[in-house]
């Protein structure tokens, strides 16, 4: 928080300084610039852009290297999860529990008129659907890994909405390491990620929502004896699911999967930013060298004075921003 405020402050000062410098240059230098000066400015600008491109490419390669390293580390671990941690029985039993919950809470949602209660049940239905779709994807990948044909065990239980969700998630899996991302996603829907401190995550989890629903059903049971069966079933399913998911979660944490995935996410974001910067720094010199320089005659130079001044100023600002950006990356 403090760091980002400092960076913003620094950037503001730089922008104001450059704004002032630009006005001064415009008033004192540009007017007296001749054709030869313009050419020198453009050549220097192109060279600066080229240097920056070199630095950016090095950064891009470094980040890509780190990304590949993490991807291969995760890819090495993912087959064990499909073969050992997620047995067919476990997937089937978890899937059955989730479906039962989904069905029960869809009915409960339809039967209530209190908005807060309905929202809670709807969240549970959404959570169970998301976990179920994730499990179906994992089952499909598991069967594929073992060379077996997909029996459609979980898919056959899906309605059209759930099937759409499943299809979308399945399509998104292209690399081996993404199996672990799906497993983490399933676990994260169930429980909040572990924190170092006592504070709880603000995001509601399926486990917490189910516990809350048990409290509500227990209370309703005492008021009008209406939800006796629902409460006992939900309580049992909650306990069974907690046992099943906690084992997977423990394994993920022992293997540091959440940390590795988070590092990959960061590397991927930085890689994307480097890529876009590289595009800008490739396009700009090309634009100058291929379009402006060949056309640059003395009258044209007079006409493009302002554009040339802005471009050269941009290259200087590019250097400063790049340094700031590198500083930020090093501080992550």
């Amino acid at each position, binding site marked *: 928080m403090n760091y980002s405020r400092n960076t913003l402050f620094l950037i503001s000062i730089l922008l104001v300084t450059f704004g002032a410098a630009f006005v001064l240059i415009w008033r004192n230098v540009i007017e007296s610039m001749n054709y030869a000066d313009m050419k020198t400015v453009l050549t220097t600008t192109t060279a600066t852009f080229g240097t920056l491109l070199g630095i950016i490419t090095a950064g891009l390669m470094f980040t890509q290297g780190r990304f590949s390293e993490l991807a291969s580390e995760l890819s090495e671990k993912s087959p064990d999860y499909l073969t050992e941690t997620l047995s067919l029985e476990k997937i089937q039993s978890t899937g059955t529990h989730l479906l039962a919950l989904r069905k029960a809470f869809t009915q409960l949602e339809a039967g209530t*008129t*209190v*908005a*807060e*209660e309905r929202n*809670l049940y709807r969240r549970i239905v959404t959570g169970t659907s998301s976990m179920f779709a994730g499990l179906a994807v994992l089952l499909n990948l598991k069967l594929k890994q073992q060379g077996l044909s997909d029996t459609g065990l979980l898919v056959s239980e899906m309605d059209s909405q759930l099937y759409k969700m499943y299809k979308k998630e399945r399509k998104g899996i292209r690399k081996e390491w993404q199996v672990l991302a799906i497993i983490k996603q399933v676990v994260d829907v169930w429980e909040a990620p572990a924190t170092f401190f*006592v*504070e*709880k995550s603000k995001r509601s989890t399926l486990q*917490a929502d189910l*516990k*809350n629903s048990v*409290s*509500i059903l*227990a*209370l*309703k049971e*005492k*008021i*009008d004896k209406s939800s006796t069966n629902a409460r006992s079933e939900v309580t049992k399913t909650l306990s069974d699911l907690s046992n099943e998911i906690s084992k997977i979660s423990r394994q993920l944490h022992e293997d540091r999967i959440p940390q590795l995935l988070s590092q990959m996410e960061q590397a991927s974001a930085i890689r994307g930013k480097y890529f876009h910067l590289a595009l800008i720094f490739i396009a700009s010199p090309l634009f100058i060298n291929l379009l402006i320089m060949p056309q640059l005659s003395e009258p044209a130079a007079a006409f493009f004075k302002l554009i040339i001044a802005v471009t050269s100023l941009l290259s200087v600002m590019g250097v400063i921003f790049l340094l700031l950006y590198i500083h930020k990356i090093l501080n992550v």
Partner: protein
Amino acid sequence: MRCRAVKKTAEERMKALFAKYSFPPLEVIIPILEKAGRGERELEAQMYDTQLALAKGIKEILGLKDKNVKTLAKVWEVMFTFGEQKFEPIELTDSRFSVSISDCPMLHVGKDVSVNVKSKFCDLICTAGSKARNNAVLDQDIGTCSWDKSLIKGSRRCKLVIELVKTK
């Protein structure tokens, strides 16, 4: 190093305790009870059972044995901390302690619920909580708990006072 390991274990046990005995979702329950027009006693009983189990668990984890106001204050503070309630201690003597709190579960109950209803449930929940903690720590309900309900009336802080009643 050993001390850190022990501390971590206590914290983990505390987290597990609070995960096991979570508070009922008042923001959902109160509108349901308001609509049903009954169920207050049942909610009070549920709150009492949860808070009693929590207070006993805290005492056990922290090894608190003394039956006095300091222990009672410690249990309240742990409950505030793990219940994510911001608080500031004001006073602690042999017979009384008070804290200033800036959040309460009733604040998260929907705007559709009137202040009167919130006030009624506030009494019910605080009484049940206080009774449970007194019974867990002092073995008898000899402490009084009073609070101004300024938080639910729009103020930013609320003062909570726990006082021991002298018994013959």
